[in-house]
């Protein structure tokens, strides 16, 4: 069982573990984890990694997310120097330090949050995305700090912040330091609210625990991708507590919408247009129409199929 499976709330399960059972070779073909259709990879990529057959939104990495969300022009990574800190010298079966270096090596990221400054259809914004493959997107010091500083930059420049969250929750190896990141990120979001600087939170599968009970649900506008799982407690914990089976669709986007936790469910292929439209109205700034945008990288690389296999840390 990979680290990601273990950090996830029990009962959530990662796509990686489901995918490993797939008999389809990586490369040209990709199997949808939901409908099990065997898909031609370039078709999937053209569709922002949404299954063309069943519309399942596959999990995508933070860089791919930001790359397809932001305009190609003037996009730059920011706050890349923030590193995780092992203040507790946490050790279980392995040292946290070693787990961190393994995750860093496997993902080529310093920690689980990537921040970029860029534009959305010409509108200057700051966008951050969680890298779920890094410790299940869990929030420790580095994630909390980067989110907070990105939000502070948005505040200073009075430009919107968009966050794509995917996280198992607080990172237990940083114990109370990670819990306090909830307070820290919520505090800076509150400042944005007071200052009228827009914050859009996009929930992508899955979001649980400390991230759900802080930055993910505090957006001026809360959006979820279709069928994303989001909640405070993991389904297994709830089942153990109440000794009942959970209803179908529990903690899915549609459940969140029905219970008033989110404003809308937005299909991944419509995410750019939707958020641009919303932010244009909130900031009273004009957009640069989409057709004037340079083509997205995916559109040029249709023939290249040597995408690295996803997953395994």
């Amino acid at each position: 069982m990979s680290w990601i499976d273990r950090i996830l709330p029990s009962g959530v399960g990662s796509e990686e573990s489901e995918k490993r059972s797939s008999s389809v070779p990586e490369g040209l073909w990709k199997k949808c984890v939901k409908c099990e259709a065997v898909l031609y990879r370039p078709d999937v990529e053209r569709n922002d990694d949404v299954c063309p057959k069943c519309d399942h939104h596959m999990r995508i990495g933070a860089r791919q997310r930001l790359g397809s969300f932001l305009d190609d022009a003037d996009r730059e990574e920011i706050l890349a120097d923030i590193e995780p800190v092992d203040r507790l010298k946490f050790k279980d079966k392995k040292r946290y330090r070693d787990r961190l270096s393994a995750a860093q090596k496997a993902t080529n990221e310093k920690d689980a949050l990537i921040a970029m400054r860029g534009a959305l259809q010409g509108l200057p914004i700051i966008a951050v995305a969680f890298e779920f493959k890094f410790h299940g997107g869990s929030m420790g010091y580095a994630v909390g700090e980067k989110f907070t500083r990105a939000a502070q930059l948005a505040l200073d420049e009075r430009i919107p912040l968009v966050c794509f969250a995917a996280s198992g929750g607080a990172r237990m190896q940083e114990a109370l330091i990670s819990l306090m990141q909830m307070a820290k990120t919520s505090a800076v979001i509150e400042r944005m609210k007071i200052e009228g600087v827009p914050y859009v939170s996009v929930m992508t599968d899955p979001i649980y625990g400390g991230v759900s009970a802080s930055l993910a649900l505090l957006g001026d506008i809360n959006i979820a991708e279709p069928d994303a799982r989001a909640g405070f407690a993991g389904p297994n914990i709830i089942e153990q507590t109440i000794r009942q089976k959970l209803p179908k669709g529990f903690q899915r986007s549609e459940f969140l919408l029905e219970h008033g936790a989110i404003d809308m469910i937005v299909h991944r292929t419509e995410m750019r247009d939707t958020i641009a439209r919303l932010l244009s109205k909130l900031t009273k700034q004009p957009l640069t129409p989409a057709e004037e945008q340079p083509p997205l990288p995916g559109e040029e690389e249709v023939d290249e199929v040597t995408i690295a296999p996803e997953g395994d840390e």
Partner: protein
Amino acid sequence: MNPNYLDFEQPIAELEVKIEELQLVGSDNEINISSEIETLRDKSTKLTEKIYSNLSAWDIVKVARHPLRPHTMDYIPRIFTEFDELHGDRHFGDDRAIVGGIARLDDRPVMVIGQEKGRAVKDKVLRNFGMPKPEGYRKALRLMEMAERFKMPVVTLIDTPGAYPGIDSEERGISESIAQNLAVMSRLATPIICIVIGEGSSGGALGIGVGDHLAMLQYATYFVISPEGCANIIWKSSDKAPDAAEAMGVTSSILQELGIVDATIPEPLGGAHRDVDLMAQRIREHIITQLDSMEQLPLEDLLAKRYQRLMSYGN
């Protein structure tokens, strides 16, 4: 095993039984055994001191969850006067896992908010074992905003096994209710003092735990995930909870070293439950000292300091 003593306290329990027996004998006997009782009492105290000077993180978690551990409802009448409980979130219901109301601390009106686990079985059920639902956090928020309007400081007493993990909790937005409290408490324009009196479990504790000053009782515990939960994830067995407690640093001494907790309030020998009045008095004095010093500061400075502190977590 004496249920009023924890496993590591059993040698003390045995001594106490001997003392009791001697007292019974002494009452109808010519022989003067009072000196013998004194010796045993002295021995019991020394033994308690010895055991309590060397508690593991997991032992402290057990003391924090001790069945006789004083709760919010034990402390409120001992710390404050004129407590008027206020109920309800004005939207859905009244969550008895969170108690709130206006009281006096000497002459000063204060808003008191605390989690209550309940004592007797019926009371425990009524209070959902101290596991608040969204309406609990929203009641707390309502009371905090009232405190801000009427310029009253807020004192929160933290003692919860966590926010309630249930279907109704999720339906009514437990995550949002906690997140909203974190956001508002970061800027609430009145002094906030938070004290972990027993078990501070994760987001459920933090939901009433953001403020200007965070104190812990000496044998209270505060963690991001329960040691059992952590052990289950890492070792696939809750038997490893003692290791998890050690690794996560769930005690006031470590959390104070990390700069997360500002102060530790010493407990009576053998834990707060051995002398609730003394414990309450110490908490009371601590709150007064803190409020006195906070009130010296202009409110703007207090809020700037609170925000700076939030931003510094982990640095």
